[in-house]
Structure formats: C-alpha cells, structure tokens
C-alpha cells in the first residue's frame, strides 16, 4: 500500500489566524454590542482575564507523527469537558460530571476470533511491547463540531499484528465495557449497550488508526474513554469507540451501535464527507471549538492522501 506523506491542507484553505477572533472575545463583543448591555464592561474585563492557560502552552510532542497537523491545538480543558460519551449521560458536560466513580484500572482486554493468539490480556501486557507516540489529529464530530487533539497512543496495526489475524479476519469488532453501576448512562436504553464499533481490516491497519491511551501526554481521563480507546481521524467521532474491553477478528461486516440506533442516519463507514449530508443536517461545514466562524469540512477530514485509496470505486453516498 502506498502511503504518501501529507502536505496536509493547502495553506490557502487554512483560515488565517488574524481573520478569526477568539470565540469568547468575539461573542462577548457582539453580545455586548447587540444587547447594549450595561455589563459590557464586566464582560470585557472577563475577556481580558480569560486568556489561555493550561497544558497546551507547555506541551510539545516527544515523538511527532508523520501525519500531524500544525493547526492550533484545542485546549485541554475543552477536550476534557465537552464530550459525547452516552454511557455517562447525553449532555456534553455529563461525561466529566458523572464519570468520577468509573475505575479504569485494573483493566483487561479480550482478544477473540480469527487470530492465532486469542484470550484475556491485562492492559499492561497489551501495551508493554510498544512505545506510545504523540499524534496530533483533527477530530470531527458527526454533530458538526471539531477539535485538534494531541493523542498519545500506539498504532492499532502494531497491536493487532501481535495476535496474528488469519486470512479469515476481514473486520475488527470492538466492544465498550458494560458497567451500569459505574456508568449511569447505561441504566437507560438510549442506545443498545454495550457500545460496539467496527473497522474493515485495511482501515484498522491504516497507519493513521491509533489505539489511544492519553491526551497531551497524560493518561486518558474517564470522560475521554479511559483507559483505552480507538482514534480513527478520518471518520466521525463516534467510530472512535471508548473504554474498549474486547477486540474481535471476524469475517463479516458487523453492525455498529449507531447504525442499529438509526440505520438511515449512521452507516458502517461514517467517513467524514462534506458532500454527503446527514439526513437531518448539513456536513459541509463545522465549528472548530474555540472559533467563531464555521470552517469548511474537508473530505476524509483532510486525510484523503492517506485513506482515499481504500474507498476507490465505492459509492460513498451509498456507503455512508
């Protein structure tokens, strides 16, 4: 397989920094202007004090990846407070608020199916032979917002190859842990628990695909899918399954949780595609967290050079 190095996004497509303002500053100013509020003074004071601060200022990747984007990183506080993780509740703040009693350690992962080596393995043993690497990826949610996240993890292919998948293994099926006592969202059947996801073998083996254990060089927090999650940057965020307890090599395309929930809206592939709208909303643009103006969504979330060849000849409108 030919994997070209990215030139990433042509610089012409990147919104110049000076053409957008800090969102909070902008909203404060427009709100103050629009409403003519007496509290404008207070708002501007707040804006002045709300300058960035946190791990993103000091953090530098120890081992930069070949496909890293050089776009501005989303602050750690935003990445850890604005989450879709229905196991802890449906609101964006729920995962951070309701995941306090979740225990990501000790952790075991079951490897099963069409592979030479299968069985239950301790997380430490699963990770031990590998050196985690930093990977800065764009993350695009199906709802129309996006972030730039510096993940820490191991290329999924490196992990999968250790188990020797056989020629019968055409798909990889992942399962999230089922612990209603620690995950209050699982007490209601909003989705069919446990959450399951899947990738085609070539997608799983693509060098972009990451088995992540951290963000900004620190271990994953519960709300981000501790202790182990998938990262598939050219697909909508819900494909990147969190808190994985099972990796199953199988022969046929599995059904995924969102596909089961709304088959007309969420397909198996769920590649980021600005030309194929969600039936109820447009996917042409996205709001990057921290920015005021929406930006154009890129085909395959900007990873076309690395992944487009896997889908050549496929009707992406049918295989959404």
């Amino acid at each position, binding site marked *: 397989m030919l994997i070209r190095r990215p030139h990433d996004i042509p610089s012409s497509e990147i919104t110049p920094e000076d053409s957008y303002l800090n969102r909070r500053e902008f909203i404060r100013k427009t709100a103050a202007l629009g409403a003519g509020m007496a509290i404008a003074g207070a708002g501007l004071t707040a804006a002045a004090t709300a300058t960035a601060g946190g791990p993103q200022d000091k953090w530098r990747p120890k081992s930069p990846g070949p496909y890293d984007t050089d776009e501005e990183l989303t602050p750690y506080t935003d990445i850890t407070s604005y989450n879709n993780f229905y196991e802890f509740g449906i609101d964006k703040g729920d995962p951070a608020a309701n995941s306090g009693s979740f225990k990501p350690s000790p952790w075991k992962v079951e490897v099963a199916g069409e592979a030479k080596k299968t069985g239950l393995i301790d997380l430490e043993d699963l990770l031990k032979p590998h050196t985690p690497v930093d990977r800065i990826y764009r993350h695009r949610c199906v709802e129309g*917002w996006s972030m730039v996240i510096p993940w820490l993890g191991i290329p999924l292919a490196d992990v999968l190859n250790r188990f020797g998948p056989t020629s019968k293994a055409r798909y990889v099926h992942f399962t999230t842990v089922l612990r209603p006592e620690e995950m209050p969202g699982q007490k209601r059947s909003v989705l069919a628990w446990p959450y399951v996801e899947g990738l085609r073998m070539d997608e799983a083996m693509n060098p972009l695909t990451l088995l992540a254990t951290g963000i900004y060089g620190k271990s994953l927090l519960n709300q981000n899918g501790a202790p182990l999650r998938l990262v598939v940057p050219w697909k909508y965020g819900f494909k990147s399954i969190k808190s994985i307890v099972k990796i199953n090599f199988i022969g046929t395309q599995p059904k995924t949780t969102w596909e089961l929930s709304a088959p007309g809206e969420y397909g198996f592939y769920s590649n980021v595609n600005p030309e194929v709208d969600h039936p109820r909303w*447009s996917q042409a643009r996205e709001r990057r967290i921290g920015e005021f103006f929406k930006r154009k969504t890129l085909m395959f979330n900007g990873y076309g050079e690395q992944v487009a060849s896997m889908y050549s000849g496929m009707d992406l409108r049918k295989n959404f």
Partner: protein
Amino acid sequence: MTVPPPGNSPGLAHRLFKPAVFLLCLIPAGALAWNLFTDNLSANPIKDITEETGTWTLRFVMITLAVTPLRKAFGWNRLGRIRRMLGLFTFMYATLHFFTYVWLDQFFDIESILADIPKRPFILAGFTAFVLFIPLAVTSTAGWVRRLGGKRWRFLHRAVYISAIAGVVHYLWLVKADIRRPVTYGVILAILLGYRLVDVLRNRNVRRSRG
C-alpha cells in the same frame, strides 16, 4: 357581606404580581448572559445559547398555554392578567433563538440558511413556529384586539397551537437518540390542547342539550 375571592383581592400583592412575574421571566435570559460573560458555558457556547433559548421558548409556550386551563379549572383568574406578557416573553425567547441561529450560528449566510430550510425538516418546523408567532406578537396590543374584533382576534391567536406543535416537532426531529425530553414537551402540550378540546366538546353538548 361578600368577601372577594383570594385570587382577586386587590392590594400590594395584587400590584406587585405582574412586575414580579416580569422579572422572573427575565431570569433565564439573565442567567444565560451571566454565564456567557463569566465564561461558565461549555466549550461550544454558541450551541449552548441555541439550546438554552430554544428550551426556554418551548417552556414559555407551555406556561402561556397553561394559563387558560388553570384559570378555568382552579378559578385562578389573576393569571389572566399575565397571559399576554407570557406570550410576549415566548416571542422574545423565540426571537433570541432565531437570531442565535441566523447570526451566531450561520453568521447571516443567507444562502446557506435558505438551503437549510427546505432540506432540514427540523429547521423548517422551527421556522414555521417562529413565523407564526410574528403576527401574534404584532396584534397583541389592545388596539389590535379592537381593530380585529374579539372573534377574529381569538381565531388568529389560535395559531399559537400550530406554533407550539411545530416547536415540539422541531425539537423531536433534531435530537440524536434520546427522545425523552421532546416527548415530555409533547405530552405536556397534548394535555394542554386536550383540555381545550374537551372544553369545546363539552360546551357544544351543553348548547345542544339546551337547544
């Protein structure tokens, strides 16, 4: 000697009732503005503002539509005095919600908004609800009641029922998986409209049995 019913007794409480409700109705908008200025919204504040103003529009529709049933069922006639104000607050929150979409979310990108309306059923439903509110807000004054005549005015203002249904449908069509919240509003609305239907049917029967 007749004692005025407690609900209609004049006095300080009577005079303060309306201004107090007025201030209460401003709390959601004030809280939202406060949280915005003190940086207490989430990482996606525009979405928060959209959701808050939308939710409060639905709540105010329900509160406004609850006035007449509460008056009739419990004799709380004092509520009649704030019905118009509650209706106008509904319109205020709907307007804030509409402009959050047009201004903050789409930034007056008319082309993209026009493309959204027919393609996105939930936006069409919300837009319908909002547009139907406009004539009701315009004709909310005493002058307009006189100009139209009570009968026609009342007929026109029944558009709020369609608006309320469109609003609930708007919410139902935009949620991803958990329909519990929109369904709750749907149930409340069904009760409020069901009450009116029963009332109409009962009055018709009374009239028929008299005739």
